C-alpha cells in the first residue's frame, strides 16, 4: 500500500459506518460488530422498534425468528451517507423476501423493499450508539398482513427515546454560534421550516421553501387515505396544535438532515382514521438537498406504525385492505 492517507474524523466515521452497513446482513456481522461497536454501545432504537416492542413478552416474540431466517436474503442498499461532528446519518433501503416468522407474522414469501434511516454516534473510531427506523408500515403493506394481536390485546407504540427541543429553541441555539458556511445557512433554513416563529425573511412569504418533495412523511397513510377521499386530512389538519420538536440536525456538502418528532393532540381525523383525542409523539427524519443556497428537494420519512398505534382504535383495516 502506498503512503498513509489522512482524513477528517467525519470522513473516517463515514467509512466505519459504511463498512458496518455493508456487513449488516452477512455471516461476518458478529465479527464486524465486535470490531466496530464500542464496549458500551447502546442501540437507542432498533429498525423495527414498534414491532419488536409489540411482540416483547408475548407469544409473538416466542414465534418470531431471527432476521437471518425471517428475511434470509436481506440486502441493505445505502444511498445517503453524511457526517457532522461525532454523528453519521444513513438513508438506506432494506430488500429481501419474507421467508420466516417476523415478529409474529408467519412467512408469506413476499418480496419487500422498504425505506430505512439510521443515525450513528462515534468516538475514537467506534460506534457508541445508534438510532434506526425502518418503514414498518411499508413492511406490513408489502407482506399484506396486519400487525398480529397480542393475547393481552395491548396495542402500544414503542416509547420514544432522546431529548428534543422546539424548533424555535433549536434555531436560537444554532444562531447563537453562527458559522460562515453554506452548510450552516442551509441548516438554518431547514430548521426555520420547523420553527413556529422563524426570523423574518428566512422563509419565502408564500409557497414551499423547496422545489420538490420526493417523499411525504406519512406517505402510506396519505396514500390509503386518498383511496377513501381523505387524502387531504394530513397531519396539520389532524393535529391543530401540532408542534415539531427537533432532536438532531446535520449538514454536509449539499445535504441537510433533520431528526424530529411530530407532537400534537389528535382532535380531527387523520386520513380517514377517526380521531380519539389521543396525544401523539412520533419520530420523523428528513433529508434535504441544496444546490448552493437553493433548496432543491426534501425527503420525509415518519414512523407511520408508531403513529397508528398512538392514535388508538382498530388497527386491522389499514393493513388488511392494502394488498
Amino acid at each position, binding site marked *: *500500500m*502506498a503512503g*498513509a*492517507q*489522512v*482524513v*477528517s*474524523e*467525519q*470522513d*473516517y466515521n*463515514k*467509512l466505519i459506518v*459504511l*463498512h458496518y452497513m*455493508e*456487513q449488516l*446482513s*452477512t*455471516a*461476518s456481522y458478529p465479527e464486524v460488530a465486535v470490531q466496530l461497536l464500542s464496549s458500551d454501545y447502546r442501540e*437507542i432504537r432498533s429498525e423495527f422498534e414498534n414491532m419488536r416492542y409489540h411482540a416483547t413478552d408475548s407469544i409473538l416474540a416466542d414465534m418470531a425468528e431471527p432476521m437471518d431466517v425471517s428475511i434470509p*436474503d436481506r*440486502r441493505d*442498499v*445505502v*444511498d445517503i*451517507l453524511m*457526517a*457532522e*461532528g*461525532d*454523528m453519521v446519518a444513513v438513508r438506506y433501503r432494506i430488500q429481501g423476501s419474507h421467508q420466516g416468522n417476523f415478529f409474529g407474522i408467519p412467512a408469506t414469501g413476499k418480496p419487500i423493499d422498504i425505506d430505512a434511516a439510521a443515525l450513528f*454516534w462515534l468516538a475514537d*473510531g467506534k460506534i457508541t*450508539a445508534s*438510532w434506526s427506523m425502518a418503514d414498518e408500515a411499508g413492511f406490513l403493506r408489502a407482506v399484506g398482513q396486519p400487525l398480529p394481536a397480542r393475547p393481552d390485546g395491548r396495542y402500544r407504540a414503542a416509547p420514544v427515546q*432522546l*431529548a*428534543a*427541543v422546539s424548533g424555535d429553541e*433549536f434555531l436560537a*441555539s*444554532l444562531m447563537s*454560534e453562527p458559522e460562515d458556511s453554506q452548510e450552516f445557512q442551509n*441548516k438554518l433554513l431547514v430548521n426555520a421550516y420547523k420553527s413556529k416563529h422563524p426570523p423574518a425573511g428566512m422563509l419565502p412569504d408564500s409557497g414551499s421553501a423547496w*422545489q*420538490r418533495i420526493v417523499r411525504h412523511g406519512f406517505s402510506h397513510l396519505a396514500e390509503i387515505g386518498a383511496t377513501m377521499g381523505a387524502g387531504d386530512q394530513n397531519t396539520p389538519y389532524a393535529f391543530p396544535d401540532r408542534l415539531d420538536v*427537533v*432532536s*438532531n*440536525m*446535520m449538514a*454536509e*456538502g*449539499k445535504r441537510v438532515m433533520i431528526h424530529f418528532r411530530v407532537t400534537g393532540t389528535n382532535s380531527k381525523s387523520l386520513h380517514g382514521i377517526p380521531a380519539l383525542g389521543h396525544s401523539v409523539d412520533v419520530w420523523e427524519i428528513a433529508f434535504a*438537498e441544496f*444546490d*448552493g443556497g437553493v433548496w*432543491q428537494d426534501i425527503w420525509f420519512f415518519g414512523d407511520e406504525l408508531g403513529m397508528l398505534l398512538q392514535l388508538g382504535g382498530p388497527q386491522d383495516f389499514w393493513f388488511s385492505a392494502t394488498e
Partner: protein
Amino acid sequence: MKMKRIRGQNLALMALLVAMGLLISGCGETKDQHTGSSHEEMSSAMETHYPVSEEDYNKLVVMKYMEALSTSLRSEVEAELLADDYQEIRKEFANMDYHAAGSQLADISDPMNVAIANRRDSVDTYIAEDDLVVIRYRISGVHTGNFYGIPATGKAVDILAGAIFWLEDGKITKRWSMADEAGFLRQVGQPLPARADGRWEAWPTVLPTRTGDELMEEALANPQDTQEYRNKLQLNAWKSPTYKEQVLDPDQSKRTGLRSGFFHIVNAAPAEMVQQYPFAGAFPDRVDNIALLAAEGKRAVILFRLTATNTNSLVGIPAQNRPVSAYEFGYQEFDGDVWKFNLWFGDDLGMLLQLGGPQDHWFQTETD
C-alpha cells in the same frame, strides 16, 4: 468538512490541538450527548486526523466527486479532484454521444444540465481495490432539454449506471462509465433519432481484455488467503470455460439474480419471440473476455465484453451474421464463500447498433 492531508505538518502542533480537543470535549459531558449537540461541536479545534488505506481515501474522493457532479459546485470540485491529465475513456451515454457526433443531432443537443435539468446521482455501491474505485449508481431526473438529438419529452427517467475510476495521489486520472442508454430511450418513449447520413454505429473504442481462462490460470498460480481473492476467483470462474465446473458450487439456487445483462433487449421483445429465439441461442460462438475484476469486502465486480457472431435470431431480431462486442458489468455480493446476489448490466444499445437492421421498433415498445 474538507479532507486534509497533513503529511509533513508540525506534529507538536497536532498534539496540542488534540489535547485542546480532549479538554474541550471533557467540559461538555454533562448533557445528553445524543441530542442537539452536533452544532456545538468544537470542530475546528478538535479536528483529529485519521489514517486510512489508499482504497478508503480513493473511495472518499469518488464519493465527494459524485456528490458534486450535478450541482453548481461541479467545476470547483473537478478542479480539485481531477488530475491534470484526467481522461474520460468512456462517457455515460457513449453510444448516443458517438451516434450524434458530427451530425445534425449534435448541433441541436443541449448540455446535460439543460437536457436533464434536475439530474441526481445516487451511488449505492463502492468497490475499491488498489488504484481503482468501481461504483454503481442511478441517474434520475426529468428529460427537460434536447438529449443527443431527442427533444425534451418532460418524462421522468431513473436509470442504472456504472463507472470505474482510476486514481493516483488522491486525484482521479481516468474514468470509464456506462449508463443504461436503452433504459433512457424506453423511459422517454423515443427511438434513437436517425443521423442525416443514415449511419448507425456503436461507440467503437475498447479496453484491453483477457480471456477468463488466462486470468484464472494467473490467479490460481498466485493464491492469496483473503475473502476477496476467493470471491474474485468464483466470479472469474463464471467466465472461464475450462475452470467453471472445477471452481463453482454446482448449486446455483443459493444465488438471487437481481437483473439480467441485456435486460431491455429481452424485456422489450414479445414473449413468444424470446421463447422461440432465446438470448442464449443467438451467439453460438460467444466468448466473454474480461476487462476488469475487482473485489472489496463482500462485493466483487467484473467488466467483460461479450464477443460473438450473431448467426441466429436474437429474440426475433433477424440475424445478419455480424460480429458483436458489447460490454457488460457484473456486480456481485458474497456472504463468506457463498455467492448470494448477482446484478448484470449490459450495453443493450451498443449491442442493438452492432446487430444492424432497423432500430426503431425496439424503443417504441414503451413500458410506462
